[in-house]
């Protein structure tokens, strides 16, 4: 085999390898593009969480906000829990989602703390971390009183 033939052979080998690589990369790109979700963030809006008359004294009230939401071909209910409480003349709303790894915290009437059932995070009434692994206080949610309807509205 001449040097010329050998060169041709090497070039062809490289072309074939590159061709196979190109086909593989195209297929992987197609699947990758399909697999990368298209997430469109919805702008927060004011929504009714509870009537101001629903709020008990001396204990945060867990309001469940339901939202119809597209989930692929599916329309599901997205349910968010917010703890509402009257503080002086004002109202406070805390997200019930633990800032550690996203479990649902609940109010413990005996200890007067929020407890996370997953990894033992504990927050005080104002949402500040008392013990356990949470890296941040419970997220504050904007809340307002609609004077006409007496509804408490939160911005979610």
């Amino acid at each position: 085999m001449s040097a010329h033939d050998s060169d041709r052979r090497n070039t062809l080998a490289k072309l074939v390898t590159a061709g196979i690589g190109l086909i593989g990369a195209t297929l992987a790109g197609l699947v990758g593009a399909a697999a990368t979700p298209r997430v469109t963030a919805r702008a927060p809006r004011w929504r009714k969480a509870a009537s101001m008359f629903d709020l008990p004294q001396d204990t945060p009230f867990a309001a469940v906000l339901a939202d119809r939401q597209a989930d692929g071909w599916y329309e599901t209910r997205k349910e968010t829990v917010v703890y509402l409480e009257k503080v002086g003349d004002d109202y406070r709303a805390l997200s019930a989602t633990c800032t550690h790894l996203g479990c649902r915290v609940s109010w413990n009437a005996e200890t007067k703390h929020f407890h996370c059932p997953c990894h033992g995070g504990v927050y005080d009434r104002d949402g500040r971390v008392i013990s356990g692994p949470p890296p941040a206080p419970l997220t504050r949610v904007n809340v307002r009183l609609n004077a006409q309807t007496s509804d408490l509205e939160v911005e979610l």
Partner: protein
Amino acid sequence: MKGLWAGLVDWLDNRTGFRKLRHHALEEPLPAGTGWWFTLGSVLLFGLSVQALTGIGLALFYAPTPDHAWDSVRYITTGVRGGAFLRGLHHWGASVVVVAAVVHLVRVVFFGSYRKPREVNWIVGILLLQVILAFGLTGYLLPWDQRAYWATVVAINISKLTPGLGELLASLLRGGSEIGALTLTRWYAIHVMVLPLALVSLVVAHLYLMRRHGISGPVRPQSGPSQMFFPHQAARDLTMAALVGVLLAVLAWKGAPPLEAPADPTSSNYIPRPEWYFLGLFQLLKYFPGRWEVIGALVIPGVAMGLLVLLPWLDRGRSREARQRMAVLVPFTFGLAILATLTVLGARDSAPASAARWNIQEIGGAAMIATSERCTRCHRADGLAAAIEPGHISKPADWVAMHVADPEVIAAGVRDAPQGSATAQAETKAMIAAVSRLRSGAPPAQDAATTHIYREFARYCFSCHVVDGAGGKDGPELTHAGLKLSTETIELRIIDPKMVKPDSDMPAFGGKMATEDIRAIAQWLASRK
């Protein structure tokens, strides 16, 4: 006839060369002294085969959508012939595979089998362990019960901690903006397509490399003739696989795999715990507060796996004898002991019980559901609708609320509409509250008299009075009513409040409630001090 058969086999061999392949696969000479310790890989392969076959059986019935996943798994357990056993085999098989993989790995470490020239096969083995754990994690989500949902919430949030790539990784795992239908289809595809493909490729590579270098054999080479894999070692493998198979069958037969209440993102009384083989990691997460959480979630597990991968290069002495390799075996054993301790601590941990306590309205509502003709007319063993079983309610909360409040919508002409009175409204509210608790289990056991009091209290009193932190606030709180009021005073107040307090807004219940119920509630309240 025999001649015809032999001729057919000869023809097939001529065309395919299968005899040579069979010879190559089975007639492997093994070092003298190869014994029971070298059956662990085969036990693992047996476990993986069980998973593949039972997985196919389950896939015949499973539907990966939020509306149907839970119901289809329940159907497998209750409606498919041998379905509960099939699911039991797959469930316990996952544990068998994890245990077999870890024991196999420990054997390889203690025998120094990863030494040169078997480094690459060691790494392939570590990759196989990751694939097995990924199977466990993705398999969890599929029943779409409470454990599935919350384990996935935590797993996806852990992936967010990955430096730089966290959000991308989390969104790839989630599929949509929230955990839901797109997450379920995605994890199902990973569980039944991506991971099996990875597993088969890695197992083939593992076996090829094992044959390429031969098995490592006993730590101290023994003299004597080498044995063929088939049938000597194969008989040991088969014996071990049969023993493990019997154990697995007993587990699947006796211990029904759990199917918890359907996934409920708003649930605040569910206490999520992972499958036992992730309890060590679960426990580790608790020790790293605040911004250090990435250390427990990713750094420590990552470093541990990294050290395992590097073992062949960290342990380069001449001898495979354990006594000569203490520098490696002591830290390795120490690491195993830490993992075991964390797992035990994780298993012992239970969240505060009071968070999960039922209130009076919920207990009363559950009693109404169990006894009210309105419900039991259809919801009974041979009724028009399924009996209401705690932990087995898959209808969403808004459907239940609609069903309880408005019979025309779901059961037109079959049920009575609740009367428009305040009492009927209170009953409806109590039933809805009870259903949301019944999703995750039965109400606490208590005597019939107390349950009766709770039911009547939920019906007539709860919407205006708080007891133990729950109730309406139009009237005074009654948690410690007995401190101020006697049975007689309370009884009078219930019968006709204006007789005791002329300006009272409270309606009179004399004539509405049975006299003995009023008496019982008064006694119960007076005993609360």
